[in-house]
């Protein structure tokens, strides 16, 4: 029916991207088209009926494309976010002489991000993943500030390490499966005699992108330094690529892997909490948001862990996962874009007010206040947890709300930072151009998340969130968080002082690591390292030396002179003759 829609999804941003190098009018047209490049993906994300898998047996190692229920939600999120970010970027970079460079990488990254969602086989997935990863580097270092370059370096190193893990896992998984199709891969992993190794590799490989602790170190560096539009897609959409990778290729829901589940749940909970705690010490709202993303991804990963440990739970958990991803992606996108808009308000009170209100709304949603998307997503998430392994729900039941308290406090600090430090500038003078996409995103986030379960006929209904029990569950953490905020507010109002006395630099555990590495690694040599001697080259050189020396007439061969002497030659003649005769006679 929708023949080659996937091709359109991929080709559109690619084509636009490759219009840019032509320069001139074509380039300007391409930049105008940038926001629309994700439209085909949006179209593909919308139908209720998933299209059949389409096979492109000429592409790569034989690709197949399509979306299932889960990936359709991811596609919806991704396409929406990229479109909005595209419009936003168009104005954010209006005065940027290098907008074309941004647009180029933006579009390529978009292609990769969309491609990995519509890919149904691991090779195409990996190819798109790589395209996204490497193109995003261009977004991270776009400003070329020292900070950006450092972040870029950490980003690319981690990305390459991640690719290494993925490649290792993929080889083994695909070998065991005898196919590259996702469904067979999942089975293949279980069948493999090295299934633990594969799972470990895939967890780590995708975990780097998903910001799983301790592989998250690049994230708080890279997300904030990128231009705001890029930050939004990095933290909103691309971070989900790792998650999607887990969901698509790990044998979640097919076999109980309690060991891995436990490991992942511990990691995720650490992420959920440490993300909040470290986030609280940040002064830069974007870094704060990045840490919040780590924390939020921890939430989602918890459910993945549940699915790993308890296959029965996955049917429900997967939906929660997808919904939460949708929620977090849109909301985090809106938060990031909002930071950018805040920088454009100038002294206009109305503008400032609008930004603050908008940001507060989404911040509250992120915190999971009742009636928000967060509340619904969290409810859906917890559905899975309840079916989870024996004993887990008890712990998770109170740990997750505690984390939610943290998120509330974190969002409070975010709003405070915006209010106190970020308003009042005019950076690009494109308030309107940036504000409108942002406000649209804020406005759309709620209905999209609310309607998605209905539209896609998921096993969860938005109404669940309005059940009294659930209402309360989502309310009390926010209330406690609000109370904490209130106390702090009161403290500050009484005696103005620094509330967070410690500062954990962005990148946290990376800092000692970098320090240690700098000690271990010798400084980059300026001169070429001395090579070990090459015997063959030495031989050829000494042979040439023999030649060159003789050519100057400085050395004559005594041996040669000796042989030409008559007496010597005669004696040799005599000797050889005698010996020959003797040998002849001596039989």
């Amino acid at each position: 029916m929708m023949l080659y829609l996937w091709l359109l999804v991929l080709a559109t941003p690619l084509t636009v991207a490759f219009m840019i190098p032509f320069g001139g009018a074509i380039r300007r047209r391409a930049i105008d088209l940038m926001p629309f490049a994700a439209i085909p993906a949006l179209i593909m994300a919308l139908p209720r009926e998933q299209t059949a898998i389409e096979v492109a047996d000429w592409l790569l190692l034989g690709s197949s494309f399509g979306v299932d229920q889960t990936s359709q939600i991811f596609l919806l999120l991704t396409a929406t976010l990229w479109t909005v970010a595209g419009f936003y970027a168009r104005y954010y970079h209006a005065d940027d002489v290098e907008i074309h460079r941004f647009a180029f990488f933006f579009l390529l990254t978009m292609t990769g991000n969309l491609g990995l969602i519509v890919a149904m086989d691991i090779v195409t997935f990996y190819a798109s993943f790589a395209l996204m990863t490497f193109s995003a580097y261009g977004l991270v270092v776009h400003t070329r500030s020292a900070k950006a370059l450092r972040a870029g370096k950490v980003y690319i190193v981690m990305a390459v390490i991640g690719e290494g893990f993925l490649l290792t896992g993929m080889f083994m998984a695909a070998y065991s499966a005898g196919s590259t199709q996702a469904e067979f891969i999942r089975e293949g992993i279980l069948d493999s005699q090295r299934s633990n190794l594969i799972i470990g590799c895939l967890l780590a490989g995708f975990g780097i992108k998903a910001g799983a602790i301790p592989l998250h170190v690049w994230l708080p560096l890279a997300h904030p330094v990128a231009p705001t539009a890029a930050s939004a897609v990095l933290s909103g959409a691309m971070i989900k690529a790792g998650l999607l990778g887990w969901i698509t290729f790990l044998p979640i829901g097919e076999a109980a892997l309690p060991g891995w589940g436990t490991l992942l749940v511990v990691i995720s909970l650490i992420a959920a909490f440490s993300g909040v705690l470290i986030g609280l010490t940040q002064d830069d709202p974007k870094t704060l948001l990045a840490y919040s993303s780590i924390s939020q991804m921890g939430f989602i990963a918890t459910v993945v862990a549940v699915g790993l440990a308890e296959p029965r739970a996955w049917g429900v958990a997967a939906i929660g996962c997808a919904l939460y991803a949708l929620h977090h992606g849109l909301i985090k996108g809106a938060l990031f874009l909002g930071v950018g808009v805040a920088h454009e308000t100038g002294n206009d009170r109305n503008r400032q007010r609008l930004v603050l209100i908008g940001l507060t709304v989404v911040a509250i949603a992120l915190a999971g206040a009742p009636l928000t998307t967060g509340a619904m997503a969290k409810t859906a998430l917890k559905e899975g947890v309840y079916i989870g392994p024996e004993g887990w729900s008890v712990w998770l039941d109170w740990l997750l709300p505690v984390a939610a308290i943290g998120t509330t406090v974190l969002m409070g600090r975010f709003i405070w930072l915006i209010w106190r430090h970020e308003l009042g500038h005019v950076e690009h003078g494109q308030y309107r151009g940036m504000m409108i996409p942002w406000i649209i995103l804020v406005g759309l986030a709620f209905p999209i998340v609310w309607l998605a379960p209905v539209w896609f006929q998921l096993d969860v209904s938005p109404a669940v969130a309005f059940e009294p029990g659930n209402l309360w569950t989502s309310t009390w953490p926010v209330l406690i968080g609000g109370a904490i905020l209130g106390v702090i507010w009161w403290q500050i109002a009484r005696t103005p002082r620094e509330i967070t006395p410690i500062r954990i630099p962005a990148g946290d555990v990376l800092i000692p690591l970098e320090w240690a590495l700098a000690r271990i690694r010798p400084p980059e040599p300026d001169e070429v390292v001395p090579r070990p001697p090459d015997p063959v080259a030495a031989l050829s050189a000494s042979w040439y030396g023999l030649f060159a020396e003789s050519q100057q007439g400085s050395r004559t061969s005594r041996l040669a002179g000796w042989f030409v002497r008559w007496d010597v030659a005669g004696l040799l003649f005599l000797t050889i003759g005698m010996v020959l005769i003797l040998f002849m006679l001596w039989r």
Partner: protein
Amino acid sequence: MSEFLIYGLAAAALFAICLHGIITRTHILRKILALNMMGSAVFLLLITIAERNQVDGVADPVPHAMVLTGIVVAVSATAFALALARRYHAQTGHTELHDEDGST
């Protein structure tokens, strides 16, 4: 048989003496003469063989033929060598073959 042996040994001795001459003497003329004498040693041996190989009292003619031819060759070769030696003398003023000269 012993007479043939004596002749044969004489030829061998002559050959050896000439060889010694060629090796040790530096004067060109002496070398040429030694070579010439060397040829004679072989001729002596050939004649001896001819005598030894008598058929019906007639000496074997083949060695005789060889000696005759050999003499012709030796004469021409000696003549050529002498001419060359003269030219050598004319160009260098030497009559002896110095080893330095050969090491060009």
